[in-house]
C-alpha cells in the first residue's frame, strides 16, 4: 500500500500561490478557509525561502490523538481524514497540529468555531459514495479515488510541491538534489513523520 505524503522543495517554490488557488477551486472551500497556504520566511532578505504548507497527514497524527470526540481516521493510503458529522468544533486539533492545518468556519455565537475543515489530500471524506455530490459538498473533491493526485501538487508551476507515495517523491527529491547539487531538505518531515529525506 502506498503511503501518501507531501514534499515541498523550498528551493523551487516561487511563492506564486497557484497551489492555494488550485486547492480552493478544486474543493470549493468557503471564503476565509485556507486548506493550503504559502509561508515566506525571511521575506525580502537574502536567503528567503517560501514553503507551501497544508495538512501533512502525519504519522500518529496529533489532531487525532487530542480530538475529544475521536472524529479522525487514517486511510489505508496514510491520509488523515475526519468526520464533520462527529466534529464539535472545539479547536483542540489546532492547538496540537504542528502545521496550523485545521481551519474553522466562523459560525454561531462569539468567536466560536464551526466544524473543522482541512486538507483531505483530495481524498474526500466519509460521506456517501466516493465522488458523490454529498461528499463533495462537505469535504471537497475525491481525486484520489479517481487515481489522481491532489490538485495543488498537480498544478504547481515549478514542480516544487510533490505529492504521492512517500518512497517515490523522496526519490524524486533525492535525484534533484544530487543533480543540482543543493537542497534545503524536506520541510516538516521530521515533525510530521519523524524522518527526513537523506541525500
Amino acid at each position, binding site marked *: 500500500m502506498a503511503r501518501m505524503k507531501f514534499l515541498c522543495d523550498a528551493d523551487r517554490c516561487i511563492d506564486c500561490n497557484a497551489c492555494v488557488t488550485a486547492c480552493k477551486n478544486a474543493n470549493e472551500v468557503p471564503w476565509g478557509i485556507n486548506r493550503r497556504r504559502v*509561508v*515566506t520566511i525571511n521575506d525580502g532578505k537574502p536567503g528567503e525561502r517560501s514553503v507551501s504548507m497544508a495538512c501533512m497527514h502525519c504519522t500518529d497524527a496529533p489532531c487525532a490523538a487530542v480530538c*475529544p470526540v475521536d472524529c479522525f481516521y487514517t486511510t489505508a493510503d496514510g491520509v488523515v481524514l475526519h468526520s464533520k458529522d462527529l*466534529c464539535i468544533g472545539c479547536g483542540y486539533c489546532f492547538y496540537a497540529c504542528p502545521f496550523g492545518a485545521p481551519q474553522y468556519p466562523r459560525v454561531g455565537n462569539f*468567536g466560536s468555531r464551526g466544524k473543522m475543515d482541512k486538507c483531505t489530500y483530495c481524498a474526500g471524506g466519509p460521506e456517501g459514495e466516493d465522488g458523490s455530490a454529498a461528499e463533495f459538498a462537505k469535504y471537497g473533491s475525491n481525486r484520489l479515488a479517481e487515481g489522481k493526485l491532489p490538485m495543488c501538487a498537480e498544478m504547481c508551476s515549478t514542480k516544487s510541491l510533490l505529492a504521492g507515495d512517500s518512497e517515490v517523491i523522496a526519490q524524486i527529491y533525492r535525484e534533484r*538534489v544530487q543533480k543540482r*547539487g543543493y537542497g534545503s531538505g524536506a520541510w516538516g518531515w521530521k515533525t510530521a513523520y519523524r524522518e527526513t529525506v537523506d541525500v
Partner: protein
Amino acid sequence: MRIVLLAVLALWIGTSPGQAQPQNAPVSGFNPTASSVSEDQLLQALDRVTGRVSIPDKKSATLEQPAGRIWRDYHRSWLPWIGGVLVLGTLAALAVFYFVRGRIRLEGGRSGRTILRFTSFERFMHWLTAFSWLVLALSGLNVAYGRRLVLPLIGEDAFSRFSQLAKYSHNFVAFPFTLGIVLMFLVWLRHNIPDRTDVEWVRQGGGIIGHAHPPAGKFNAGQKAVFWIVVLGGAAVAVTGYLLLFPFYVTDIAGQQLAQVVHGVVALMMIAAMLGHIYIGTLGMEDAFDAMATGEVDLNWARAHHSLWVEEELARAARPPSGAAPAE
C-alpha cells in the same frame, strides 16, 4: 589562496547538519542552500518557524510549531493523571473522613428559634454560581475525559451529539457563572478578609478535627478559604476560558496552548476543592444546608459555628432602627 580557503570554510560552516548535503558540487558553481534559511536552525532557535503570508489570517504565518506535540502529551498523558489524582483523591479522602469522623452533629439540639443567615439575594447569587459551575464542570470534564469514559458506552454518534450540546452549554453558561463570581466577590468580600480569629480557628482545627467550636464571624477561616478559592480560581478559569472562547483575538498559538492548560488544571483543582465544600455543606454537617436553602439557621447552630457573627446580629437587632443608638 587564503581568501578561497576562508570562503570554503564559511560555506562549510553555513551549511547546517540538517540540510541535504549532496556529494556533487552545485552545477551552477554556487550553493544557494548555504546562505538560505534552514528548518533545523529555525527550530533550534525558536522551536517555531514563522514567516509572512499573503492572506488575512495572521496565525497561518506560523509554518511549524512542534510544541503542539508537547501540548498533545499534556492532554493525552498528563491530564488524566492530574484529574484522577485531584478528583478521585479528594473523593477518597472525603469518604475516609466520613467514616472516621462521621457527620458533625449539632450538639445540644435545636433551639427552635432561627436567625436569618443569608438573604434571598445572597442565596440567589450562590445558586446561580453553583448551578452554572456544575454545568461547566460536567461539560468540561466531558471534553477532557468523555472520549475515554463516555464514548465507549454510548457510541460515537450519540457521544458527538451530546458533546456538541455540552460544548454549547459550556460556552453559554460561562456568562452567568462569571456574573455569579463577580456578585459573590462584591457582596461577601468584607466578610472574608482574614483576621486574628482565623488563626485561632485554624489552631483549634476548626472543630472539624476535634470537637471544639472556635469562635468565628459570618465566615470561618475554612469558609474564607473556599471564598478565595472560588473567587481567584473562578477568575483564572474565566479569563483563560474567554481566551479559549475567543481564540487568537488576544494571543498566539503558544498563548492559546498555555491558556488551555491553565484552564484545565485550575478547573480540576477547583472541582476538587468544591467537592469538599459540597460535602461539608450537605452530608458532612448537620443543619448546614438550611443556610443556603431557606436562609434561616437555628440559633444554637449559629452560636456553635459562628459565635461572633451571632453576637453582632443580635446586638444590631437590639438597637433601635435609626438615629440615636444607645452606647453598646
